[in-house]
Every structure is written in C-alpha cells, then in structure tokens.
C-alpha cells in the first residue's frame, strides 16, 4: 500500500493500537504469554511426571529432580528467546514475520494473495486470552503463516484489517454477512461418536469389565491394568473428535464456507470455494437406523515436505460430523451445483464380483461431476468435480475380466477421497476412459475462466496491490 492506512485512534485498547501500529509498519512482538502457551502441554506433562515420580519412588533422588527442573527451565528459556526474536509487521502490502536466533527466517505473505485467515484457540490459549492466527495463501499448496499467539483483541483487529487489505479496502469492513447453514447438536454428536467403531469397542470393553467384576473379581484388576492403556487411548481419540466437532456451525459467506467449532480448543476456519477437491458422505451401519450421515471435504494438500503443521496435514475435514440427509443435501448444494441426478448401477453380473456391496453400487457422471456410491456396512458416497481430476485410470482385475467388467478410478489431489466407478460394463468403462479426460479438461477450462474473472475483479478494485 502506498498510503499508510489510518484507522481512527479514538477508543482503542492498547492491544488494538499495537495491531494497528504493526499494520502501519512498526515491528511488533507476539503476546508475552506465547512461550507459556506453546510449551503448555509439554510443561504440564513434565510437571505431572515430576509429581508422580516425587510421589512414588522416593528418598534422596535430588539429582533427578534437578535434571527435570533444568529441563523445564531450558524449555522455558528457549520459548522466551523464540518470543524475543519473533517479530511481525506489515509493509508495502506484505505481512512479514521474522523469527529465529541462530537460523533466522523471514517469511513474507503478500496480502493480496490471502485466501483465508483462521483463528485457533487451544485450551490454554483461552485461559490466557490469546489466539493464534493462521494465514493461508492462494495458489499452490497453500502455505500457512502462523502468528501464535496474539491477544484476543489484537487478533480480531489484525484479522479484520488484513482481510480488508487483502480485498483492497483500507478500512476494516464489517464481517461479510453470513448465513448459517447447519449446526450440530452436542447430544447428537455424542451419540454418534458412541455409535462409531472406536466407540463401540470402548463400550464393549466397559461392559466386559463390568461383567468380569461380577463373575471373577480376582482377575478384574489384572484385566484393567492390561487394557488400561488401550482403553485410555480410545477414550482420548473419541474425546478429541467430540472436542473438535463440538457445536460445529457451518455458514455460507462470500469468501467460502465458515466453520466454527470446539469445546476446549476453539477454531474458526474458512474453506474457500475453489479449493474443495472432493466431498464424501459416510453412513456407518449403526447410524443408518437414525438416518444420520457424515460429510467430509477433501482440500488440496501438497505431499508433505519436511515438518508440517498438524492441522494442515489433516486433509479431510468434517463439514458435518453427524447430521440428517437433509442437512447434508443442503451443504452439498451450497458447495457444488449441477450434480448428476440419475444414478446408474453396474450390470447384474457384477454381483459375482462384489456380492456384498453390489446392492449399493452405483455411480453417475455428467459434464462437471462424478458421483459414486459403494460399501455394504459403511456406505460411502463420493462427489468429485471433474475440474479437479488429476488422472483417470481403468483397472481390470482377473475376476472382472471373466465377467467383462472394469472399474474407472478418478484421482484427485486430495488425500483421502478418490472416486471409483466400480464394476461397470467393459464397453461403458472404455468409453468413459475415452471421454472423461476431455470432459475434465473442459470443466477445468470453465473453472479457470471463472477464477480469472474473479481475479480481475479484485485487481480492478485494488490496483495498488
């Protein structure tokens, strides 16, 4: 920006004025509590270990206590140093984050390429009133910039201003109007988690232990101690799901879908429209009685190079952890339009190849999308936009060859979802293999055109950036 941008100075808290100063090009540090929050989990674990070891094995073990203490001090010092050398500022339309003492890194994030800014607040961060900003850039693999942590007010101000700048406005606009599409009730989420695989295992184990306590109390203790670690891990993974999807609310806004969720760690993230590679609907057997389903989106993720952000690598995001088919249809319609209506099923002889899942096997493809359904116990439906297809494969196994059947695979850049039109008639499959690449290309061209129009619209509004 050629003009330094000048929000009103009246009625600002110190945190807000810090954010504004950073926006005007002054170096700013992160929140002083950052090292504490970052080291939080590790320190808590070590302190817990210390207390346990102090409580149990005992007497004259001073040296080991000193070692533990030294570890804590070193971790804390490292955190403080990291905090001291990490600075950020906005200059010339670029957000710059410098960090590192020995190995200095300086990251630059051009504001006009910002695609979304997510806010994440882990439990400790909420206690201290701080938040992490995650800045995602357009194009390529979507490298994320992190500002961890800023005080809540600072984070909110900065987020609003950065987004405004990225859209070429100098004033922070009020957040775009958004329309809430679905919310998930905690009770239903809880029930659904109890009804999934790991939940059922845990329940069975608890019931088994209860029976054992009555029948053979003598081996009860042994059984508990043997299975405790596994059960604990199961419970933690279930809790993590509950925590992550708690009160998930999906709303539709101009810049994509907004997802807000979290019990202890809360997060607010945005999924821009062009980034969705595929959508998957999963209906586990135990949920079907209630008419529930789960909707996941797969966004582009680069093959990990080196260390990667934990949340980045988690490619498939639940758009709807549990919900009715009507809710799923609503979400689907808000993301993809022009989905194929009619489905076709494989020829009856495919029953010999896939006796169990034959009943649900179906698929369809039109000019823009392919949809496939498969699975007997866990029914899975995949929607893949042809514009996102990376390659098309025809696969024919030995049994399929006897029956004159072939499967068509559509590969996308997403991690987990890839559509398979299973066990189609061979002539149909061969024809599809012939036509699909052209259809993908056309779909891709249409989308590129759309994106270019959008981009020129942005630069027209904002010639400076």
């Amino acid at each position: 920006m050629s003009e330094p941008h000048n929000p009103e100075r009246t009625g600002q808290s110190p945190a807000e004025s810090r954010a504004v100063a950073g926006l005007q090009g002054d170096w700013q540090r992160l929140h002083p509590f950052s090292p504490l929050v970052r080291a939080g989990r590790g320190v808590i674990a070590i302190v817990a270990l210390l207390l346990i070891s102090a409580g149990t094995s005992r007497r004259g073990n001073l040296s080991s206590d000193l070692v533990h203490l030294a570890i804590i001090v070193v971790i804390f010092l490292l955190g403080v140093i990291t905090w001291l050398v990490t600075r950020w500022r906005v200059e010339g339309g670029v957000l710059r984050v410098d960090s590192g003492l020995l190995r200095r890194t300086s990251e630059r994030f051009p504001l006009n390429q910002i695609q979304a800014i997510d806010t994440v607040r882990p439990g400790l961060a909420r206690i201290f009133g701080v938040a992490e900003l995650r800045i995602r850039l357009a194009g390529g693999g979507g490298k994320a910039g992190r500002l961890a942590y800023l005080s809540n007010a600072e984070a909110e101000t900065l987020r609003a201003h950065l987004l405004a700048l990225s859209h070429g406005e100098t004033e922070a606009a009020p957040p775009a109007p958004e329309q809430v599409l679905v919310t998930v009730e905690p009770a239903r989420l809880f029930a659904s988690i109890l009804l999934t695989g790991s939940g059922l295992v845990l329940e069975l184990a608890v019931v088994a232990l209860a029976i054992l306590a009555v029948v053979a109390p003598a081996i009860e203790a042994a059984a508990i101690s043997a299975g405790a670690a596994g059960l604990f891990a199961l419970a933690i993974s279930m809790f993590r799901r509950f925590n992550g999807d708690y009160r998930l609310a999906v709303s539709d806004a101009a810049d994509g879908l907004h997802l807000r969720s979290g019990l202890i760690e809360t997060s607010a993230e945005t999924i821009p429209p062009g980034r969705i590679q595929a959508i998957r609907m999963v209906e586990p057997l135990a949920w079907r009685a209630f008419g529930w389903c789960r909707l996941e989106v797969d966004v582009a993720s680069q093959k990990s190079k080196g260390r990667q952000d934990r949340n980045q690598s988690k490619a498939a995001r639940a758009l709807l952890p549990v919900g009715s088919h009507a809710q799923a249809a609503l979400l689907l319609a808000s993301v993809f339009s022009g989905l194929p209506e009619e489905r076709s099923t494989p020829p009856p002889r495919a029953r010999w190849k896939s006796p169990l899942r034959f009943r649900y096997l179906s698929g369809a493809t039109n000019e823009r999308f392919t949809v496939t359904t498969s699975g007997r116990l866990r029914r899975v439906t995949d929607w893949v936009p042809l514009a996102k297809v990376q390659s098309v494969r025809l696969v024919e196994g030995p049994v399929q060859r006897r029956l004159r059947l072939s499967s068509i695979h559509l590969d996308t850049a997403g991690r987990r979802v890839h559509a398979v039109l299973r066990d189609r008639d061979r002539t149909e499959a061969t024809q599809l293999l012939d036509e699909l690449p052209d259809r993908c290309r056309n779909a891709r061209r249409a989308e590129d055109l759309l994106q270019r129009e959008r981009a020129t619209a942005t630069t027209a509004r904002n010639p400076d950036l």
Partner: protein
Amino acid sequence: MSDAAVDDQESIWNAPSPRLRRLRHYEVATGTFVAVLVAVGTTVALGATLAMVIAVICVIVAGASADVVAGRRVRAWAYTERAEDLLVKRGVMFKRTSVIPYGRMQYVEVTAGPFERAFGLATVQMHTAAAASDARIPGLPAQEAARLRDQLTSLGEANAMGL
C-alpha cells in the same frame, strides 16, 4: 490386449526397450541363483541330501515361472503420447490403463538404477498432485527417456493448470 485399451484413432503404442526383457531375465536369474545357494547351504548344513535336491528343484521351478511372469509383464507395458495426455498401459493380472493430462503434471522424474544403467535404460515417471496417479514407464533407452522427459516438460508447461 487391445480389448481393454482405448482403441483410439491411429494412436500407436510404444513399448519399453527389448533390453528390459533381458534385464528382468538377469534379475530373476540372479535372484534364483542366490536362492539356490541359500537352499544348498542350509540343507547341506542340516545334512539332508534328498531335501537339498527337492529344495533346488523347487527354487528353479519358482525362478522359471517368475521369469515367465516378468516377461509377460514387460510385454504388457505400453505408452502413447496423445495430443493432450499421456496414456500408460500395464499389468497382466490387473490390467491398468491410465490417462494423465499433460496439464496436470507437476514434475517428471527420470531414474536409472545400477542395473538399468548397465543396460542403458531409464525409468520415466510423471508426477501429478494426486498420489494415486500411475504414470511410470520403465525400461526406456536412455535417449528415448531424455526425449520423453523434455517432451513432457514442455507440454506440461504449455498446458499447465493449477490444483
């Protein structure tokens, strides 16, 4: 073989070099030889002569059938460059035909292991953003591999598409 393929216009299928067949032949022979040595070694150590004969016969039969399978797999491999995509065919039991648009290419990788190098061969692999994409062509003569690499690179640049 053309039954499952895309019987496309006048596309001509290119095959890997015949030297790949010989390379696989040597690879199987080496493996069999090592297996025979191991079989003889262990059975002699145990002092069972009859077992030794049986083991050696089994290993040789297994080696011979592996050689036949390897030969068929080499013959099944074929590729063709169309106007806007690369077609790769492979597999005997599981036949696969992949269509990879040039525009989806992220990078081309040419590898040549020590054995391949000894035969003047190289493997060309085209990578897309999808991990499942399967565009590997083994056993190309070094010159053809270099040509294909350059060709794919320029076509990829010309047609480049984002994610």
